[in-house]
């Protein structure tokens, strides 16, 4: 039997009423005490944050449980949607079925649909370990958009102008900690689907880290979701993956960047030369599911 | 005298058209056709005779007029009210059995000199169908002054009359007119012995065209598209080498002509096809098939009376087809003979009685029209009125 009666004690009606009154009083105080739009007090003229905003690289997006949630979203929503909308035709997928060390994936860019389609083309194992470089000044200008995109596509902010050192450094850290990096070296979406000149950053990154580069080419995504439209429409999409390119000994980053650009151009033209798509023996070996591979472990990211 | 009279009435016409060819509407009291006592047509002048019809057929063009599906083009070329019936066998006062060539050209209208077409013998194209002592009209049966086959009596000019040989029955003689149309069409088609000829449709006109083509311009292969089994059997006996169902037309014409067939939307496309196609139904679907079943540079002859039909002109344009009509008869250039004479000769060997029937008295015209509208399903070819009782009594 509980002691006391219904109107007294800790959960009695009088006690509850007084707590409610307390809440109301607080709310009234806050509402009256803080104004917006009124002049600041003269004595506190300067606005400042006590703790400076550290530029976030959204490390949370690459940790559990976000990774599992993302896997679910991509398997359950993105992949079926991509299949239905574009029925993507993927050529050379054996090159990205499994990678024994981190690689830079380079693709042309003509649509916001590129990223989900390319990730779809990668296959589960590689997709799980791929981060996407997304324009910091576009996606991360609005924090909620940045978070949604990071959750869905595992993007990280990539500054297109200014702070090149910083961005290169962060990308290297990601590569070193075992992540593949999907980059669009054109810098922005092509207005008409044709290839635009590549920016040289990819060359630097690859040469500096001795990372192979996998050229990819998407055709048709521009019809799905062109620049300037917000609603995707169904259209067929073809994705070609080329043989990985590695920077040669003594090859400068600029030369290597040119070579990568030529490879993507050749893929766009549909060339099937062995230098580009590999001989059948190379592709056969690349697609060997039985050969045991050292599963790359994700190292903890280097602290700054 | 007793006759079925066709009058002109816009509300009735609209009603018929809305009913979409339903027999009970087309013969109702609101219809364009009425049975009753009408004035006996007067003889317009010398050379005209009175003819008492014996058997008078219900033609597809009559049915089109009744159900409001005839082309507006024909409207100014007709005078109202008229008594329908232009394919008939009849008897003169003196007892001679005759058939009437219904076309009302210069000779009939007493125009001297005749227009250039009548002079050539192509009386169907006569330019003077509005002149002379009788009313406007292309044919007996569409002209107010002459009477028509669906009445007790009509008047005809001597130049319209052809004596029927003893051996020919009244029923077979009645088919002289449509047979003459078909012979005219066959000669306009002018198939050679290397051609593959297609006759689309196996109603009376289609069957008679099969017979005419076989007789006058025998081709390498004669294919007939027939919808109903009795039509298929008749087509075969009249000389078709191959009879196919409409649903199989593309498949079987392709095989017969060694063409290629491409799958299309709604209709297929044949690369190749028949050399000459006779379209003997006059309906839009069949016309659209006909132009696709004919090879490039081939000839399509419209025999059945078409109305205002939606036909895709792209095949005609792309295949450079020669599309030609075949309306009526006169004197055939290729033989130098009159078409009716040729038809009377031809029908001696064709045993055309089997195409005619059943026969109805004029008083049962509602049943007759209903039967004629459903002729294919009822296993009939040409429904006709039997007027022998009337004239004898």
């Amino acid at each position, binding site marked *: 039997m509980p002691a006391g009666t219904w109107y007294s004690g800790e959960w009695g009606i009088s006690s509850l009423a007084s707590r409610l009154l307390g809440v109301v009083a607080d709310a009234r105080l806050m509402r009256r005490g803080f104004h917006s739009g009124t002049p600041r007090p003269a004595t506190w003229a300067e606005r400042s944050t006590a703790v400076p905003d550290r530029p976030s690289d959204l490390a949370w997006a690459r940790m559990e449980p976000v990774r599992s949630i993302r896997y679910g979203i991509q398997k359950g929503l993105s992949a079926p949607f991509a299949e239905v909308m574009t029925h993507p035709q993927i050529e050379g997928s054996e090159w990205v079925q499994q990678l024994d060390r981190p690689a830079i994936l380079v693709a042309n860019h003509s649509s916001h649909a590129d990223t989900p389609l390319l990730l779809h083309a990668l296959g589960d194992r590689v997709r799980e370990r791929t981060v996407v470089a997304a324009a910091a000044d576009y996606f991360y200008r609005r924090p909620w958009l940045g978070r949604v995109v990071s959750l869905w596509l595992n993007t990280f902010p990539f500054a297109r102008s200014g702070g090149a050192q910083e961005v290169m450094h962060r990308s290297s850290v990601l590569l070193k900690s075992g992540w593949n990096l999907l980059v669009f070296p054109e810098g922005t979406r092509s207005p008409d689907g044709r290839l635009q000149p590549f920016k040289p950053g990819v060359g630097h990154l690859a040469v500096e880290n001795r990372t192979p580069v996998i050229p990819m080419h998407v055709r048709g995504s521009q019809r799905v979701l062109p620049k300037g439209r917000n609603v995707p429409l169904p259209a067929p999409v073809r994705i070609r993956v080329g043989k990985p390119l590695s920077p040669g000994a003594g090859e400068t980053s600029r030369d290597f960047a040119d070579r990568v650009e030529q490879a993507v151009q050749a893929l766009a033209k549909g060339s099937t030369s062995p230098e580009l798509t590999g001989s059948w023996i190379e592709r056969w*070996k690349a697609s060997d599911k039985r050969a045991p591979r050292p599963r790359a472990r994700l190292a903890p990211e280097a602290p700054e | 005298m007793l006759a079925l009279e066709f009058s002109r009435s816009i509300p009735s016409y609209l009603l018929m058209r809305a009913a979409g060819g339903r027999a009970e509407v087309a013969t109702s009291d609101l219809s364009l056709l009425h049975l009753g006592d009408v004035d006996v047509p007067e003889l317009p002048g010398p050379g005209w005779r009175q003819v008492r019809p014996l058997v008078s057929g219900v033609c597809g063009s009559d049915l089109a007029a009744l159900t409001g599906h005839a082309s507006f083009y024909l409207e100014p070329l007709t005078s109202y009210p008229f008594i329908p019936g232009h394919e008939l066998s009849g008897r003169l006062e003196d007892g001679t059995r005759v058939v009437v060539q219904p076309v009302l050209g210069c000779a009939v209208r007493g125009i001297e000199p005749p227009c250039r077409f009548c002079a050539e013998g192509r009386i169907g194209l006569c330019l003077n169908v509005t002149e002379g002592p009788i009313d406007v009209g292309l044919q007996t049966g569409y002209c107010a002054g002459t009477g028509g086959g669906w009445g007790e009596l009509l008047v005809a000019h001597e130049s319209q009359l052809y004596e029927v040989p003893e051996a020919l029955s009244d029923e077979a003689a009645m088919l002289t007119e449509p047979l003459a149309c078909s012979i005219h069409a066959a000669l306009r088609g002018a198939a050679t012995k290397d051609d593959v000829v297609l006759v689309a449709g196996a109603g009376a006109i289609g069957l008679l065209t099969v017979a005419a083509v076989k007789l006058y311009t025998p081709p390498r292969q004669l294919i007939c598209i027939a919808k109903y089994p009795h039509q298929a059997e008749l087509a075969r006996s009249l000389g078709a080498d191959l009879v196919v169902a409409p649903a199989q037309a593309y498949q079987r014409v392709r*095989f017969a002509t060694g063409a*290629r067939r491409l799958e299309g939307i709604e209709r297929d496309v044949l690369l190749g096809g028949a050399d000459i196609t006779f379209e003997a139904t006059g309906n839009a679907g069949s016309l659209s098939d006909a132009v696709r079943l004919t090879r490039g540079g081939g000839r399509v002859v419209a025999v059945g009376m078409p109305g205002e039909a939606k036909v895709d002109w792209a095949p005609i344009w792309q295949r450079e087809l020669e599309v030609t009509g075949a309306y009526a008869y006169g004197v055939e250039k290729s033989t130098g003979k009159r078409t009716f004479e040729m038809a009377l000769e031809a029908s001696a060997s064709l045993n055309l009685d089997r195409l005619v029937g059943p026969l109805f008295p004029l008083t049962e015209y509602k049943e007759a029209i209903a039967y004629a509208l459903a002729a294919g399903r009822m296993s009939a070819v040409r429904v006709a009125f039997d007027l022998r009782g009337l004239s004898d009594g």
Partner: protein
Amino acid sequence: MARPGAVIEVDRNTPPTLFHYGEGFRLERLPLGSRIVYPPDPIDPIGHPERAIRRALSNPLEDDPLKELLRPGMKLTIAFDDLSLPLPPMAAPDVRGLVIEEVVDAAARAGVEDVELIAAISLHRKMTADEIRHIVGDRVFTTFWPDRLYNHDAEDPSQNVLIGRTNQGEEVWLNRRASESDLVVYVNLTLVPMDGGHKSLATGLGCYRSVKAHHTVDTLLQSRSYMHPPDSALHASCVRQGELIEDAVRVFHIETSVNNHSFPAVANFLQKRETDWTTGDQAAFFALKQVTDLAPPDVKRAAFHSMLAPYGMTGVNAGQVDKVHDKTLENVRRQMMVPVEGQTDIVTLGVPYLGPYNVNSIMNPVLVVCTGLGYLFNLYKNKPVVREGGVVIIEHPCRYEFNAVHHPSYVDFYDEVLADTTDPHEIESRYEKRFAEDAWYRQMYQQSHAYHGVHPFYAWYWAAFTLQHCGDVIVVGGDRATVHRLGFKSATTLEDALEMAEQTVGRWPSITHLRTPPLMLCEVD
């Protein structure tokens, strides 16, 4: 240990017998005293197929191990059987895919750059990408399609070369790529004794001019039966052609055989004898029967054609063609052979939804004849199960339906040729050439997925011996007009059909029902 096949006599306690009936079934009560021939149960498959394949490749019969035949810089062509085998198609992985993967792997290790894979379709329809993918497996497909993995084209003059003539004057043609290769590896799947051996290459990569040497009415009439190669004029001709090819090209032959586990778990009762049906099987049959009785044909077809068979591999051999084929036939017979005592007056059989030429397609009336009277009837050794002048009763709906893409020449064969005559000799002499040379059929064969123009003739010739041997053919439950067009008699029930048959074979006939598929080979003495 699997049970061997059996011949059972119908008595009062025998449950009703299942008849295949197109995309459906009928349950019939056979008269007392009738015999039912049941196929053997599936024999135990090889436990580890990949290992067995590797062993076969490294220990071939009368040939060097595959590894030693491969060297860099050589031209290697791998040819494989098309989707007409096995029936129904095998659930992934297909045995041929497993073999091809091993061969390709060996070629990759040896560094053979120039490798091409050709589907030996002969005059069959070209397979679609997905059908090829199913046979060769995903990995081979993505590596080679479409430049180095393709369908043979028997109508492309630049792709076929004349190898020579046999001493009997038969022309031998071969795919150009195969004829120019340093090594041709043929990957076969033998389902019935007719398949495989020299027939694989000589026919599979041949063209009309070489196939017509033995696909004639006379050859087939002299093949008693073509399901038993030693008694088959067809196979004698193939051997002559094959030997000529062996002289011209280095061939490494790989043959596999599978057991007769033809139906997946959902239709397990089809695999069992009616006496063994559990309550579950009975319920499954009952449900399926009701569904197939009610469902429209398209729906039924889609469902039936999606069934894949869980075959197990029973043998794999590599090396010289004849030696390999002997071993394979041994394996096939081990699975299929059923001894049957004496011939009979009447044979009944149900024609199923599937024959060799309508995988993922429609079993049209011509193919009903080919499957029922051609293939199923001819699965005998020594002599047919039905006596000469006896009656064959088949059950099939025989609807007038054709697949316009796959069988354009079949429609015309039915409407033009069969309308004229059903006599194989007459058909052959009057119509075959025209169909074989028709430009449209050729175009459909080359550019679409159509069987060759001449193929319906071969389908009909397959049944030539049956038509000659039997006094009458009665179709139960078929469309009357279609059955008459095929030249047979039509009956509504099996009882009526037996009554009609008695007019041909006399009162109190002996009746034998072939409860097939699963397939079997009746050894009649």
